[in-house]
């Protein structure tokens, strides 16, 4: 009996902790948004540094992954379509799948693994080595100083990287379509553009397929930065604590990306 009680208690504690930390993440996000007006000009240098970290460094990986995702999709989907004699429809599918779903998700996964984990580690290390305490003692707000520039950079860079990844994916799809499925390049790109064309009820000049993907990427970027920074700020207990913070950050980001990603799609396309 005692073991059942212990298990339940442990579960309860874990749930309570998760709820508290989700609250904390929301708190630093709203605090960052509020500090945007008064502090952004002064923190511009940090934001530029973060642009490099979040945008330039992961670019090669995003390009390679984007290209091969497009190729893979074209290969698998193309073979099925070929059986139905519909090979030429490959372009429509690639564009829609990449821009709507795969692009934002794949890019955010890459950013979680490469940038989010680094954010959690950096901020966690600052926490356990008393640097954040020192900032507080100097009346420097750690959220405005550390978190806000990272959220801004991720919110801007994630959609950009997503777009680049998707364009490369379409290119990769085109290569496979031409070499493996015998769909000519001109047909592929004409179909691709038609499938992504702006509909009359779309927002401005952007086709719905593209802007929903980019809105998703924008939300994902903010999510990854916020969750990772929150985990870092909550780190405690030396190097082990930093390791734990990184793991927490990555696991939570992955879960949140897939869950929130579903609901955003549901909102736009149901």
């Amino acid at each position, binding site marked *: 009996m005692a073991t059942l009680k212990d298990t339940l208690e442990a579960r309860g504690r874990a749930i309570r902790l998760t709820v508290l930390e989700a609250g904390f993440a929301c708190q630093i996000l709203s605090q960052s948004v509020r500090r945007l007006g008064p502090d952004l000009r*002064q923190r511009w240098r940090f934001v530029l540094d973060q642009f490099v970290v979040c945008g330039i460094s992961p670019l090669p990986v995003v390009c390679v992954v984007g290209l091969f995702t497009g190729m893979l999709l074209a290969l698998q989907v193309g073979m099925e379509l070929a059986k139905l004699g519909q090979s030429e429809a490959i372009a429509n599918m690639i564009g829609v799948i990449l821009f709507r779903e795969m692009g934002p998700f794949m890019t955010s996964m890459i950013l979680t693994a490469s940038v989010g984990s680094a954010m959690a580690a*950096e901020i966690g*290390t*600052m926490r356990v*080595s*008393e*640097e954040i*305490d*020192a*900032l*507080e*003692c*100097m*009346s*420097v707000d750690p959220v405005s100083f550390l978190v806000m520039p990272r959220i801004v950079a991720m919110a801007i860079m994630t959609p950009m990287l997503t777009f680049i990844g998707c364009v490369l994916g379409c290119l990769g799809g085109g290569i496979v379509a031409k070499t493996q499925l015998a769909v000519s390049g001109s047909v592929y790109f004409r179909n691709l553009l038609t499938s992504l064309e702006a509909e009359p009820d779309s927002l401005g000049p952007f086709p719905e397929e593209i802007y929903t993907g980019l809105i998703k990427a924008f939300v994902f970027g903010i999510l990854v930065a916020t969750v990772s920074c929150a985990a870092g700020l909550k780190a405690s207990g030396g190097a082990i604590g930093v390791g734990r913070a990184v793991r927490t950050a990555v696991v939570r980001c992955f879960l949140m990306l897939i869950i929130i990603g579903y609901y955003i799609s549901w909102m736009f396309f149901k």
Partner: protein
Amino acid sequence: MIELQDVHKSFGDFHVLRGVNLRLEKGETLVVLGRSGTGKSVTLKHIVGLLRPDSGKILVDGIDVPAADAEQLRVVRRQVAYLFQTGALVNWLSVRDNVALPLVEKRTLPPGEIRERVDESLASLGMLEAAERMPAEISGGMKKRAALARVLVAQPRAILYDEPTAGLDPIMARTVGRLIRDVQSSGERTALVVTHDLELAFAVATRIGLHYEGELIELADPEDFKQSRHPIIRAFLDGEDDTAVEGNPR
């Protein structure tokens, strides 16, 4: 200006502070000696509101620190600066940017004046040549000096020094001792110095206390402290093992 009344603090089962009492008037330099791990740093962290006591009162200029709201805490921290034992420099800013940080964040001084004051502060600690280096590229003692420069540059009314000379060579330690005395010479500043360095202690102190078993015992003038008959203090000053002292509860 700083007052602690019967402050208790435990970490889990570990009762670190067991009723710390102290009163620090403006212009005083109180030195706190004590063995490693007795809770000296923990005491200092309570004064700047980084830790909350389990019970007891902490007053800085009449502000109740544990109960202070964000604005009051800002007031306290603007007046009381804390030199961290580890230095705690921001690792991705150069030494110069670290030292400039408190002034830049205040947003009241023009850049030219900030630069002047930062250079002056760095120069007084012989850190001007290392100003452009990153914290990871300088030695432990240099980090300590950079952190001290960062504390002094903001010209706070009270400074809590956590082992300001640990990790410094004897010459540099004496320079730091002189610097603390210079800062204190105006009589306007208050200082609380935690140290193991007896030479520094007797050089700067107006009063000395010993932190022992979670309490501050015997707060006295340096001369009286030196002559103290208290067995624990004798053991500490003479460098004996205090577990051998009779009446030690451990």
